[in-house]
Every structure is written in C-alpha cells, then in structure tokens.
C-alpha cells in the first residue's frame, strides 16, 4: 500500500440528474503510478464518475456533493481555462467506443498533433514528427503512412491505439481508460491492456481502469473498487478481491465473469449470473443490492450499510460479510 498523498482523491462524490442520482457518496484514491480498477456492471455510474473527474459531465448532470482533488488541488473549484490545461495534459482519457471516438473528417495524425500543439506549443512539423513517434510507441505498424490516414481506414484496435497515443502524448500523470477494450476482440483486448500497462510503467503515470469485467482486473490492476448502483460496495487489493471476494455482489460478479487467465478460464466451472437487475436499486432506502442479495437481512433494507474497514486497505459495505470476516480475523488472530 502506498502511504504518500494520493495523486487523485475522489471523496463523497454525488452526481444527480433531475431524474435521479446515479452516483452516491462515491470515493476512491489513485496513487502515483498505480492502476486502480473501478468495476461494476452497466449503468452503475462508472462513466459518470470518470467524466466528473474530467469535468465533462453532460449539462443536465450536476455534482451535488463531494470533492475531487488532483495532487491536493480541488478540481471542482478550478476556473474553466485552468481546467482545460488539466485535460489532456495532466489527466487524459480514452473511451469505450474507438469507432466513434475519433473525428471521421480529420487524419489521425492531425488529431494527435492537435494535443501536442495545444499543450506543448509545438510547431506543426515538430508535432508531426512526435506524432509518428507516438504511433510507433503504441505499436501502430508503418506509422509514417498511418499518420495521414483517416480513422475509417483503421481497425477498431488500431483506432484505440491511436486514442491511446493521443492520450499519452503529453505524458499525463493520470490516464482514465473507460472500458477501453469492451468493444474489441478478446485477443486485441489483451494487447491493448498490455500496451496500457507498459505505457503506465514507462511513462510513470497512474491508470484509472474502468471496466465491468472482473476478469481482467487480476492481471492488470493493483487495487479494485467495486461499484454498485452508484455506491462503493467493496475495495481491496486486486488479488484479494479475486481470491476472497467479500461483498455478495462481488461474489456474484466474479462468478459471472470469465477470466483471461487461461488456466482458470475454462476450469472455473459454468458461469452463473446474478438474478435480477441493477434497475431494482432505484429508490431503495437500504442497500442497493438488497433486492438481489441472497444474504440480505431485514436491516439491509432500512438504510445502506456503512463502508467498514475489515483490514487495512480493505473496505466492504455489507454487515453480514463484515461480521463473518471480522470473526475470521479474530480466529486467525490477526
């Protein structure tokens, strides 16, 4: 565990639309150079959280509470022009859909060079040269030719590489990758994740990896935050979560996800899905997972269980598992 002040500190974040509150009291920290995975099924509020950090929420969404700090600086209070200097330079972001995330009428080279010219003040030729280097860095074959291609001539994986090149162009401290591989083939997924991981190490940046796939967490993340219906339900080191999930939702999620880890992939038995849907969390006074939870207690339905630290760095919001875990801890004498 890193003990130094975190690079990014999101605390008690609540995001509301006029129609609902999809993110509630959410929080996490990202340390310099680490990979934090935020895991949750579709609609749990992962993208909204990421966009809130970038301050790119859709106009109808409002941050109604919470703090977002980058190296101690409160991003929520930053004037817009300064925030623009944060975007693309200190925090970069890549998106789920490589097919639509690039402008179809501009060459990929121009779109990458644009960041360099904006933040580094490079001349056009210098930016172009650097762009070619970047394309090479993200393993795009034949970068001299590709630099002048339009996005529609590239495959999905290639486009995501271009997006990554664009994101790391200014060596940001933090890269937010919002489901960067969801739209890609499994084999390409691994390549892209490897690439992100290598760049993280080479460039010394932190990675906020957003995914709904617990399966990829073990190999590429240091720590995991599990999100359900806008709330943090569990947080732990990646290996601990996989080997010993505590929250009933995490367990269900794990049972429902194939693992990229080949040995485990086919031997883990049949995949099971969690009964019910995330929609049932709407308007719940208690634990959002209670309607789908096999272990739910009457108290779970009254108010959301608090997040409790069962061990250093390990948090879980479930009274049942907290109790048993604490019992285990006592038994083992930790």
């Amino acid at each position: 565990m890193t003990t130094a002040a975190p690079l990014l500190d999101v605390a008690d974040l609540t995001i509301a639309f006029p129609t609902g509150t999809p993110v509630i009291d959410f929080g996490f920290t990202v340390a310099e150079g680490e990979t934090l995975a935020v895991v949750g099924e579709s609609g749990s509020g992962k993208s909204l959280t990421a966009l809130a950090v970038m301050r790119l929420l859709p106009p109808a969404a409002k941050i109604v509470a919470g703090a977002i700090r980058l190296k101690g600086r409160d991003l929520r209070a930053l004037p817009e022009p300064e925030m623009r200097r944060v975007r693309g330079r200190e925090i970069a972001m890549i998106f789920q859909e490589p097919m639509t995330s690039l402008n179809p009428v501009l060459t990929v080279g121009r779109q990458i060079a644009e960041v360099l010219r904006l933040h580094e003040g490079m001349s056009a030729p210098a930016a172009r040269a650097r762009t070619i280097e970047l394309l090479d860095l993200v393993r795009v074959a034949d970068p001299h030719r590709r630099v002048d291609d339009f996005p529609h001539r590239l495959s999905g994986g290639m486009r995501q590489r271009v997006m990554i090149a664009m994101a790391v162009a200014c060596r940001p401290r933090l890269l937010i990758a919002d489901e960067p591989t969801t739209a890609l083939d499994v084999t390409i997924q691994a390549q892209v994740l490897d690439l992100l991981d290598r760049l993280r190490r080479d460039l010394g940046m932190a990675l906020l990896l957003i995914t709904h796939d617990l399966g990829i967490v073990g190999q590429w993340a240091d720590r995991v935050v599990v999100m359900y219906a806008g709330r943090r339900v569990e947080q732990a080191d990646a290996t601990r979560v996989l080997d010993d999930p505590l929250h009933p939702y995490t367990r269900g999620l794990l049972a429902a996800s194939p693992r990229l880890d080949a040995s485990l992939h086919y031997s883990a038995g049949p995949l099971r899905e969690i009964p019910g849907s995330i929609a049932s969390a709407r308007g719940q006074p208690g634990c959002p997972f209670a309607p789908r939870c096999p272990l739910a207690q009457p108290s779970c339905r009254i108010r959301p269980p608090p997040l409790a630290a069962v061990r250093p760095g390990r948090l879980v919001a479930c009274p049942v598992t907290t109790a048993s875990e604490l019992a285990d801890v006592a038994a083992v004498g930790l």
Partner: protein
Amino acid sequence: MFENRRLLRVLRRTVVQAVPTVLGIVVLNFLLLKLAPGDAADVMAGEFGTATEETMAMLRRQFGLDLPLLQQLLAYLGNLVQFSLGFSPRYGMPVSELIGQRLPSTLMLMGLALAIAVVVGIALGTTMAMTAGRWTDRVLSVVSLLFYSVPGFWIGLMLIVLFSVKLGWLPSGGQETIGAGLTGLDAVADRLKHMILPATSLALFYVAIYGRLTRAAVLEVASQDYVRTAAAKGLAPLTVTLRHVLRNALLPVTTLAGIHFGGILGGAVVVETVYSWPGLGRLAFESVMRRDFNVLLGVLLLSSFLVIIANTLIDLLHAWLDPRIEVR
C-alpha cells in the same frame, strides 16, 4: 496524380451525363413554351397597338413562327449544334451576346448572395446551437423565422428606404453609377456598393434556411463521441465547434446551397426588379412575357449547365469535406 486522374474521370462522366440531360431540357422546354397562348408576334403587335395583319405575317415569317413545330425545333437544335443560341428579334441582338452581357453581373450577384447566406447562415446557426435553449438562441430563432417568412420584395424595398432614401449610404438600384466612367478599383468598389442591398435581400431568405439547418446539424454532431474526445484534450469550446463540429455539420448545408444555386437564378426576378438590376432572372421573366423564346431557351439552357456545374462542385466539395465519401 491519382487525385487528378480521379477528377478528370469525374468531369468526363459529368459531361457525358450532361449532354442527354441538357438535350431533354431543351426539347421539353421548347414544347412547354409553345403551349403558352400567344406568340411573339401577338405580343409585339399588341404593343405597337396599330399593327396590321401584314405586319403580323411578316413578323411571324421573320421569327420562323410560320413553320411547323417540329421544323422550328429542328432549326433551334441545328443552331445549338453550331454553338449558336439564335437571335432575339425583341432586343435586336444575338441571344448569346444578350446573355453574355448579363451573365457576369448575375453570377456575381448570385455568388455574393449565396456567400452571404452560407457564411451568415452558418454563423447564425452555430451561435444558436452553442447557446441552444438560452435567450440568444431564442432571439435569433425568431429573427431567422422573420427572414424566412417576409417576402423578398418587401425586404428589398425596406432596405432601399432605410439605406438609400433615409441614410443615403447606398445606391437605390442599378448595377453601377451610370456614366461615372469609373475604372479599375473604383469601378469594382462601385459595383460592390450596388450589389450589397440586392445581394442582402436575396440572401436573407437563405440565411434563415441555412441557419436552421446548421443549428440542427451542429446540435446533432455536438453529441457525437469524437466531440467529447476533443473536449477531453483540453480544447476550448470555440475550437471544438469550429474544428470538430462544423466541418461535420457542413455537409447538409452545402448540399442545399448547391441545389439553391440553380433555383436562385429564378428567385432573383423579384430582387432584380426591385433593384432595377439587369439580370438573367428578369431577362428570362420578360422573355416569357414577350414570348421571346430564343432568349428564354438560352437562359434555361444556361441555368441547367449552371446546375450541373454546381452539383459537380458540391460533389467534389463533399469528397473534400468528408473523406469517407468517394466521388460519385
């Protein structure tokens, strides 16, 4: 190299397709015009007031109106093959010369009007889209609705009353200061001064259309993922709009502008009349009134060429704007 060959191919195909189109237009127009009651001799004799039957017979013989219809058509086509548009008895000059006199200034007026319409319309539409739902958007929407619904001649007259009669800034009509003998830059400036009001009156209607269209297109493009990507790079909203949104939003506007370029020739009659501007629209209108069909056919032929040229240019422009489009 490859680009040039591709362009040449496009041009050749355009020409090959244009010939039968134009021929069809000529024949159809010719026959339609012959359906109109009365002929040039009727009108001319009517205007003399005191014509005799002999004069009318002479006029008909001279205009070739005494020949059977088919023979008249063949004679006209025969002229065309020799690159002649025939002769206008009304104006006492060859049609090509008559059209040639008016074409440059008309094209300039149309071009200026369309340029104003496209530039102002896009600016207006972009502003509306960027302030969508706020009061700027609302006010501009009302203004553009006004431009759209107020008739051109009224706008024209009001502009004259304001800028010529009351303020005295701009001339009230005509296409140059007659008899001033201006040369060089002065002459150009003088012509431009005479063009401002008519071009503006002509443009306002189209400003409204392009404004609405741009607003819708910009709003649609603004919700695209790549616009979010651009914002995530740290670009300022104006840069995002100009560089990433507008170019994608321009396609529908340019398509429409291309279509309008053909139609605007006809729509210009009113403005040309109000501003006493000797343009092709009025020439065509008056030729209809006078049954001066050689002139009318000449103008129609020319406008069909213009439409074809405009469409080709639009195709090329589209291919340039959007690399996904192959030149058709």
